């Protein structure tokens, strides 16, 4: 670790690693720090990603792919099943990853690109001069240290303290997170070709339970509930209940916990000399909770903008605005749409979810996308889903009688 870099990236998750790799590939000197002693461990829930999107960032490698999923099966509270084939399951279905190895492989990519990667090293504050972030204060193996840089990229996940140090309010309200718990289980006996989702307010208040295959008879069984519904009972309690009832004989080989921001985009993700990416920028999808691909997309944009800014020797927000604009025009749009859907769905009673599921019983989904699924739902349930109409503005124009 040197005393000075062009860019310091805080956090070695998928967003941080892609940012570091992108910046290093452009020839910048980059330091990426991770406070945990093992990159990727402990895992913070859900490990599904879309194939198409993953390929844009890294060539899939069997060492960190546990299962190749054909489709998903969604169960409404009364047990009605909706089955979707892989092309249409949206962002989260495709591969189920071994995050420990995946995150490490991505960090390795950034190291190969020339970035310095250091673990067991925690950022404790920012160095700020004349309103500009100029580096990071660190704690490395119990010793304090200062590293100066032209830019800092905050990729510190759900905690998002880096943003707060720079004056961006990243704190989340209970209604803006899904609080999650997950067991890695053996002996569930599930069909390893599918991801399963269980909806129901008793089982998972304003959230859902997922069962993802992890290969060789293993499965991730997890739950996310809306933070505002947590309290008397916590995510882990709901998960235990489900598992006791559904897989009484299965064994728990690992427990993971975490939280996903479902707030939708926050107001600002830049400050002078600073950019935030991934969960730290609250860029996860409010419906699927998926954050891996979004973090990687944002990481790439941040790495590219870092290079531009440093080439022009301009680290001001005026310059970094390019990052803000670019991610908002792409993933930001999808996050906004998902937020609309989330806001509609979290309000539904079990009875309403059942009736939505029934309306799709005779629809064949093998050739549809998530947005098409929503549109099919919308057409059959206009009154209930009226708030979703904005999503289909272009489609709806061609329809009569609406």
């Amino acid at each position: 670790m040197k005393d000075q870099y062009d860019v310091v990236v805080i956090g070695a998750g998928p967003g941080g690693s892609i940012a570091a790799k992108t910046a290093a590939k452009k020839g910048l000197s980059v330091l990426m720090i991770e406070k945990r002693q093992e990159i990727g461990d402990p895992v913070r829930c859900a490990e599904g990603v879309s194939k198409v999107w993953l390929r844009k960032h890294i060539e899939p490698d069997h060492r960190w792919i546990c299962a190749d999923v054909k489709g998903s099966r969604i169960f409404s509270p009364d047990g009605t099943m909706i089955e979707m084939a892989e092309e249409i399951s949206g962002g989260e279905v495709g591969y189920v990853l071994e995050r420990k190895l995946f995150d490490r492989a991505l960090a390795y990519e950034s190291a190969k690109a020339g970035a310095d990667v250091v673990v067991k090293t925690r950022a404790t504050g920012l160095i700020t001069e004349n309103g500009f972030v100029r580096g990071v204060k660190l704690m490395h193996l119990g010793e304090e240290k200062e590293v100066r840089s032209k830019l800092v990229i905050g990729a510190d996940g759900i905690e998002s303290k880096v943003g707060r140090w720079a004056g961006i309010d990243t704190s989340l309200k209970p209604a803006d997170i899904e609080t999650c718990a997950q067991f890695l289980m053996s002996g569930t006996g599930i069909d390893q070709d599918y991801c399963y989702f269980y909806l129901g307010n008793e089982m998972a208040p304003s959230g859902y339970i997922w069962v993802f295959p992890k290969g060789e008879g293993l499965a991730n069984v997890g739950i996310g509930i809306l933070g505002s519904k947590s309290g008397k009972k916590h995510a882990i309690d709901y998960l235990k209940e489900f598992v006791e009832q559904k897989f009484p004989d299965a064994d728990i080989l690992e427990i993971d916990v975490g939280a996903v921001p479902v707030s939708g985009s926050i107001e600002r993700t830049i400050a002078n000399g600073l950019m935030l990416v991934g969960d730290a920028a609250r860029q996860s999808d409010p419906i699927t909770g998926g954050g891996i691909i979004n973090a990687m997309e944002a990481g790439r944009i941040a790495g590219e903008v870092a290079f531009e800014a440093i080439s022009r020797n301009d680290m001001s927000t005026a310059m970094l605005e390019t990052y803000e604009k670019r991610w908002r025009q792409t993933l930001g749009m999808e996050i906004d749409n998902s937020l609309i859907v989330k806001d509609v769905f979290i309000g539904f009673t079990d009875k309403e979810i059942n009736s939505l599921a029934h309306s799709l019983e005779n629809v064949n989904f093998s050739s549809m996308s998530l947005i098409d699924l929503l549109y099919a739902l919308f057409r059959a349930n206009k009154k209930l889903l009226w708030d979703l109409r904005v999503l289909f503005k272009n489609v709806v124009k061609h329809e009569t009688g609406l």
Partner: protein
Amino acid sequence: MAIKVNKFKCGYCGACVGVCPTGALELVETWIEVDENCTSCGICARICPMGAIEVSR
């Protein structure tokens, strides 16, 4: 300090850090530290996926 984190239950996920309105929490590798900015609002205890936090007023 007005909150108590049960380190035997905590899964060091950082969720509590992300919701604390006053920035009083810090996840240090595998444990949570609380500073004097804690107002005992109880939000962290409510959302902790493991139910590892207790607030006393």
